[in-house]
């Protein structure tokens, strides 16, 4: 998917002016964060579980090569084909190759942010394989040819009426006058159409929330069951997972699951948590005959051991989006690519470069709520500042800001110069009555400086 992150300011302005989006973002505040508080209030061990989960991730990242190798070894024992992809090109070629070997005409897909990251849908379609998203939200945005606007609720920006219009346009074989005024009727229509697609698909592609080294198992969590139909019905199942998804044991996976859904949707656990280990066995009555896992790096190994390593603990729960004042003001599309919110503002520069993405780390008030709610306690504000520093140090920051900061620092380093100049400045501002309409943030100063008046003996 092509990034429009460069145009962040325009994207954000569009988001701010979109009434339907604003209504949806208003609902967001009343949904996930409220449910999150409710579910964690029922689990006294929640903070300890966060610490445990962080320790698991840290240990795994410190031994990432070893755990990846053990994962691969154990997955192969169960009959899995394990592929390694350095980048999106590698991954797309591998997946297309598997689809061709399977003689695939259609491919169903479970929700996978990594698959969005490598733009697999467009690539498969260009090569004659039809990809069909099956997560309801993903299906809707696929019909609309839009990127996800939220990493766990991809169609959160849309109203029911917009979805109804999309369905009427796309499902043109159905009665044009049918009633689609309720979310229930929309869901039923999508369910009926996608049920046929599930049964007809030749290949199913899913992501993975985790890979378990101990057993060579991939894990997905869903609420709809689409991931399971995607991976159970076709003859071939392809899992695509990035390298940092590996965890050591089933017990470690259990710890992470306890904080994942609670932080994401505010559920104790998602409806379906599915552990897949290899293809259909001799006495199995159903399931895929071929099971492939594509392990993707795509720049992540370069974060390891560096100042952005903490980001590799991210479990893509979206708590940081759900609590971010900036995300809730502009919505996910303003970020211009696959990942949005604070996690996107840290990850996108790592994957796309600062030239394209420098607005994202800057467009934050650094309020710190993201770090508070991140189950993995990723220091997102610090990581955002680190990107700002890189941008500033490589000369990227705009001239106005640079000159302003330099002038301020020049004066502030020289109190003897700063004091008289600031006295003039505040007097002028006072005469003007403050910043006025243009800078409402600047009130009319009271007049005089505290330090000067204190020195003169005022108390």
């Amino acid at each position: 998917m092509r990034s429009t992150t460069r145009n962040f300011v325009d994207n954000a302005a569009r988001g701010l002016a979109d009434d339907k989006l604003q209504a949806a973002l208003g609902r967001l505040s009343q949904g996930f964060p409220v449910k999150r508080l409710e579910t964690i209030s029922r689990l006294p061990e929640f903070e300890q579980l966060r610490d445990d989960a962080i320790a698991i991730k840290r240990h795994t990242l410190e031994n990432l090569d070893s755990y990846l190798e053990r994962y691969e070894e154990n997955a192969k024992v169960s009959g899995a084909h394990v592929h390694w992809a350095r980048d999106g090109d590698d991954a797309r070629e591998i997946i297309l190759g598997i689809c061709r070997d399977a003689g695939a005409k259609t491919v169903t897909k479970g929700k996978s942010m990594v698959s969005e990251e490598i733009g697999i849908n467009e690539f498969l379609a260009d090569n004659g394989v039809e990809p069909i998203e099956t997560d309801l939200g993903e299906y809707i945005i696929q019909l609309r040819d839009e990127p996800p606007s939220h990493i766990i609720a991809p169609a959160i920006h849309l109203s029911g009426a917009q979805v109804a219009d999309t369905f009427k346009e796309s499902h043109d074989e159905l009665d044009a006058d049918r009633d689609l005024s309720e979310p229930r009727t929309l869901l039923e229509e999508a369910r009926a159409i996608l049920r046929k697609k599930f049964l007809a698909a030749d290949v199913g592609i899913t992501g993975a929330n985790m890979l378990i080294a101990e057993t060579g198992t991939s894990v997905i969590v869903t609420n709809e069951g689409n991931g399971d139909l995607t991976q159970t019905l076709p003859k071939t199942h392809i899992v695509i997972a990035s390298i940092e998804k590996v965890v050591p044991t089933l017990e470690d996976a259990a710890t992470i699951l306890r904080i994942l859904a609670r932080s994401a949707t505010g559920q104790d656990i998602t409806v379906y948590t599915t552990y897949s280990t290899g293809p259909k066995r001799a006495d199995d009555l159903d399931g895929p005959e071929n099971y492939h896992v594509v392990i993707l790096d795509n720049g992540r190994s370069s974060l390891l051991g560096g100042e952005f390593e903490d980001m590799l603990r991210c479990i893509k729960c979206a708590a940081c989006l759900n609590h971010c004042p900036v995300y809730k003001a502009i919505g996910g599309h303003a970020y211009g690519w696959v990942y949005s919110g604070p996690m996107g503002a840290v990850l996108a520069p790592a994957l796309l470069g600062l030239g394209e993405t420098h607005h994202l780390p800057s467009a934050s008030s650094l309020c710190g709520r993201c770090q508070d709610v991140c189950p993995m306690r990723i220091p997102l504000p610090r990581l955002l500042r680190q990107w700002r520093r890189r941008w500033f140090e490589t000369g990227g920051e705009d001239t106005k800001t640079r000159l302003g900061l330099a002038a301020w620092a020049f004066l502030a380093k020289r109190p003897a110069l700063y004091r008289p100049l600031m006295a003039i400045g505040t007097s002028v501002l006072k005469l003007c009555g403050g910043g006025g309409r243009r800078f409402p943030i600047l009130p009319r100063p009271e007049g005089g400086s505290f330090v000067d008046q204190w020195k003169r003996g005022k108390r």
Partner: protein
Amino acid sequence: MKAARSEILANVRSALNKKDIEIPSAVDERLRAHAINTVPARVSGADADRIAIFIEEAERASATIERIKAPKELAGAVTAYLKSIDEEQAVRAAGHPLLKECLAEQTILEVTEGPSDGTDTVALTAAFAGIAETGTLVLCAGSESPTTLNFLPDTNIVLLPEVSIVGTYEDAWAALRQTMGSGVMPRTVNWITGPSRSADIEQTLLMGAHGPRRLHIILLADS
């Protein structure tokens, strides 16, 4: 592909400042020990009423639950449940020995065995375990438990012996290791907590997104 593998692993090792390609013994020790991290005290304590908590949590996840005392009561319970939801008295059942035993003498229900092809409306399966912590069912793929039954039929009825209710996720893994051996997994393990749902349209929560619209759990006291 070989090249990609070695390149990625080399990049990882160089980022970690690792010169040695040997896998440290601490890694294999951790995999062997599969130690338990923090678990919720509510369900792990000796005096925890796991059955009561399982029921409470499964209901919170919108499953419906009833309890029967003996295997021979299953057919009657299923019949009454199907009647209550206006379904025909026909089930697609897993070929599980416990289900066979329960249904051996019944004549009311039309029972066929095997995986689902999407035409069946009601599935009847038997769970490997129930996890009290979140009211979660554990189903393991195999000849006695086809995975399609868990997802294709509109109504999912699952039989769970009360003796198979454990406290925590870790307890469920321990039970599975006891059955299958350490490090061995069924092809698919499904954890199921309530019926399928989606809130993707206007954040309105609706049941029955792609999987079952209803999940009915029948707890069996004596098995």
